[in-house]
């Protein structure tokens, strides 16, 4: 019998040809307890199911939708799932989390994970419910946005299906295409291209069963308590202004990446700030499924319509590209949603291209920093993969820099191929380490090390051993939250996170888990991700930052200089390897005989 909150099995679906073939895949309780679900369980599944060295866009590359024991419970923010695959952008493990009813319906098909392999003969939709799986040709969905495809699919198959779909960019294998559902996105790493490579436009799921938790009254009481705490000061920022509240604050502390990381303050920041927009625009709030925080802020656009805006899409399509007109940034963000591409990678790649134009390395004189129309034109070129620039930029900044050459890799804003999020590493040096060593690449969600930099407890301009410990701690916390799965925006409400998370997990699963076990679980998940990457050819050389970050100090608004040289970063990385029990080359060689649970 499976533990509470779990079914104890995944569903493997092969979409090769014209029919889907499925098979159950048993998940031993030891695996579930050791990897929890979400990102952790997805990593374990990838180790088992992805052939070593597989091309991420090959039919045999698995695409896993992974749930967790908490999905479907009344615990706030738990309606989440992880999409896990080998990234078309990085060639390494990637995982993206998203929140929607898809999580609940997908799990209640009776599975802890859905793993898709193969390639359909024609553009199709995959339907999964209690009756099994079906592959339905859907050529009429070609070229539709994800939202349009969702609407069309539910019109065709019924409104009780929940949908995860790709936009035109996924169909065209843009390497940072997203998977979307209910207006949310599994955004990073190009999972939409993985789905597109399987000729699957949409996955539809329908709930067919229920799942019991170990202590229903206990879970209800915990849910009430967590919901109450979710209205406290730790989430005020998200409720009142949303993540866009970061923008003006980051500008004030010189950590707002601007014009492809050539500056950390942006003169146009006030125009894009949540504080200003809230005064000037109509704003609506929305929540993910099962969430009491309600961080989504949807702004009205001049000329009609509205757009959900987050810090990361505004940073990437605004300051990073030098664009300060909010309506141009809104339009660019909307275009990314329509095309189905990751705003961070899109903005980063275009900003890199703009700098290439400035330096005379790309002959596209129209593509200039600060030009919102040019930004939209570039996005369209990427989404349609127009020959030349569109095709080039659809590969992401690392591959594009390899084509352009002339040292342009030095200022390509990426780590392991994944474009940097909106946190300047030179002025956030704990974050610099987190970005360098993270398995997913330059990522702010799997390593929230910026928290330490902004805590007031460390000198954010002088990375050292204390910063290493902080980076390890935040990475561990993320590993557990992303596997249980709980929204990171809740993290501030937990005074003793590992203890409190263990208590929640015990109520749901019935496992007598404690904080020490969860800490070990976090470590296992982090190492399992690294082990996957090592298997796929990653080396210590991949744990670094772009040369620009290490060679060019940054002028702060205060007049001081923030410098992060290669020696300091190497020293922090060495400390990280030691703290993780890795060898000097970052390899997993410590006494973890059951790291991958050979069961």
């Amino acid at each position, binding site marked *: 019998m499976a533990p509470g909150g779990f079914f104890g099995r995944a569903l493997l679906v092969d979409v090769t040809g014209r029919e889907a073939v499925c098979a159950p895949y048993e998940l031993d309780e030891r695996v579930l307890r050791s990897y929890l679900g979400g990102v952790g369980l997805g990593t374990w599944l990838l180790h088992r199911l992805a052939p070593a060295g597989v091309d991420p866009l090959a039919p045999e590359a698995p695409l896993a939708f992974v749930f967790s024991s908490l999905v479907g419970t009344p615990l706030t923010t738990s309606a989440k799932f992880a999409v896990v695959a080998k990234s078309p952008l990085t060639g390494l493990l990637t995982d993206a989390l998203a929140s929607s009813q898809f999580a609940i319906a997908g799990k209640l098909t009776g599975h802890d994970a859905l793993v898709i392999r193969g390639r359909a003969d024609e553009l199709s939709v995959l339907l999964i419910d209690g009756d099994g799986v079906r592959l339905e040709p859907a050529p009429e969905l070609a070229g539709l946005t994800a939202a349009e495809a969702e609407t069309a699919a539910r019109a065709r198959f019924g409104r009780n299906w929940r949908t995860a779909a790709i936009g035109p960019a996924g169909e065209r294998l843009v390497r940072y295409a997203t998977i979307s559902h209910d207006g949310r996105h599994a955004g990073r790493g190009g999972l939409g291209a993985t789905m597109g490579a399987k000729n699957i436009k949409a996955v539809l799921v329908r709930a067919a069963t229920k799942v019991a938790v170990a202590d229903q009254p206990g879970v209800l009481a915990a849910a009430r308590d967590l919901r109450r705490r979710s209205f406290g000061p730790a*989430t005020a920022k998200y409720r009142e202004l949303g993540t866009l509240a970061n923008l003006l604050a980051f500008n*004030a502390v010189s950590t707002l990446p601007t014009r492809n990381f050539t500056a950390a303050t942006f003169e146009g920041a006030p125009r894009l700030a949540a504080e200003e927009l809230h005064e000037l625009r109509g704003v609506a709030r929305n929540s993910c499924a099962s969430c009491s925080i309600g961080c989504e802020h949807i702004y009205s656009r001049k000329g009609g319509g509205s757009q959900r805006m987050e810090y990361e899409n505004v940073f990437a399509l605004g300051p990073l590209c030098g664009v300060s007109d909010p309506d141009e940034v809104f339009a660019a963000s909307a275009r990314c949603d329509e095309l189905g591409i990751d705003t961070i990678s899109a903005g980063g790649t275009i900003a890199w291209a703009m700098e290439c134009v400035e330096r005379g390395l790309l002959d596209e004189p129209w593509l200039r920093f600060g030009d919102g129309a040019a930004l939209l034109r570039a996005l369209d070129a990427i989404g349609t993969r127009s020959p030349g620039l569109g095709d080039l930029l659809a590969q992401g900044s690392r591959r594009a820099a390899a084509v352009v050459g002339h040292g342009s890799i030095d200022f390509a804003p990426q780590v392991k191929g994944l474009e940097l999020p909106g946190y300047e590493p030179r002025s956030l040096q704990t974050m610099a380490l987190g970005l360098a060593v993270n398995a997913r690449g330059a990522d702010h969600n799997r390593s929230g090390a910026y928290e330490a930099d902004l805590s007031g407890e460390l000198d954010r301009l002088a990375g050292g051993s204390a910063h290493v410990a902080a980076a390890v701690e935040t990475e561990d916390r993320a590993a557990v939250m992303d596997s249980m799965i709980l929204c990171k925006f809740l993290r501030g409400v937990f005074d003793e996170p590992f203890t409190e998370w263990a208590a929640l997990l015990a109520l749901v699963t019935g496992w007598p888990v404690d904080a020490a076990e969860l800490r070990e679980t976090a470590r296992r998940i982090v190492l399992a991700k690294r082990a996957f990457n090592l298997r796929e050819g990653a080396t210590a050389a991949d744990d670094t930052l772009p040369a620009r970050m290490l060679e060019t100090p940054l002028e702060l608004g205060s007049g001081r200089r923030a410098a992060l040289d290669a020696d300091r970063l190497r020293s922090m990385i060495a400390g990280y390897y030691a703290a993780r029990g890795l060898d000097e080359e970052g390899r997993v060689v410590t006494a973890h005989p059951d790291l991958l649970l050979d069961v």
Partner: protein
Amino acid sequence: MGQPKAWLEWHGSTLLYRAAAILARTVDGPVVVVAAPGQELPPLPSNVSVVEDPVEGLGPMQGLAVGLAAVADRAETAFVCSTDMPFLHPAFVRRVLRALPEGTDVALPVARGFRQPLAAGYRTALAGLVRDLLAEGDLRPGMLFKHCEVAQLDDERLLADAELSRRDPELESVVNVNSPDDYAVARDRPEPEIVVECFGALARNGSHRPHTVRAATLGAAASAVGLTLSRHVVAALNGDQVTRDERLPLVAGDTVAFLSADAGG
């Protein structure tokens, strides 16, 4: 004075805390306090260390020798000041230290009509020379200056620095308190003017736009805008240091940004 100068109250902390914290927020290197043998000191900022002077009664030259030696392995130059300078401004410290290029041993302000050896910049390598002079019975800083290269900084040269001229035009950085009256007068002066910005959920009714308050410490600035520094609320001083230290001293011209520590997204 009724009590040691180091312990004199200064806007919720002490004169010594203020002097040490001003230096700590200004320089990149270490900050040390030289204590007399057995001297009990008030609490200090966490990034400030204490070295004990093994010999009592030899005056400021002995403290200078001990202090310079304590940081010599980590810094080539040092700013040296006494504990009783409540208006010391970071701009003054920066101006003095900039006057210590290669070949200069001491940057000596001659401000408000007096030489200021206890508000001056020194090469830390001078520690040995100072010790030798002390061994020979030379207890006055003037003897040291005869043996090394000194750059004198008069008022005009000091105020040629635009930042110092703007922030401390009267060179009150070198004012010290030597009597109860001095202290009372200094303590009664209004707190410095600080520019405050609040961001994100901390901003109310347009308060993210810069406005001015009077506050001698970060905690006072937070109170002035209705905030309390906490796990969720931090402050950035002049756009670089992020801190929750309520006792952090502020000076005229500082800009304090209050922001949410919950920065994710």
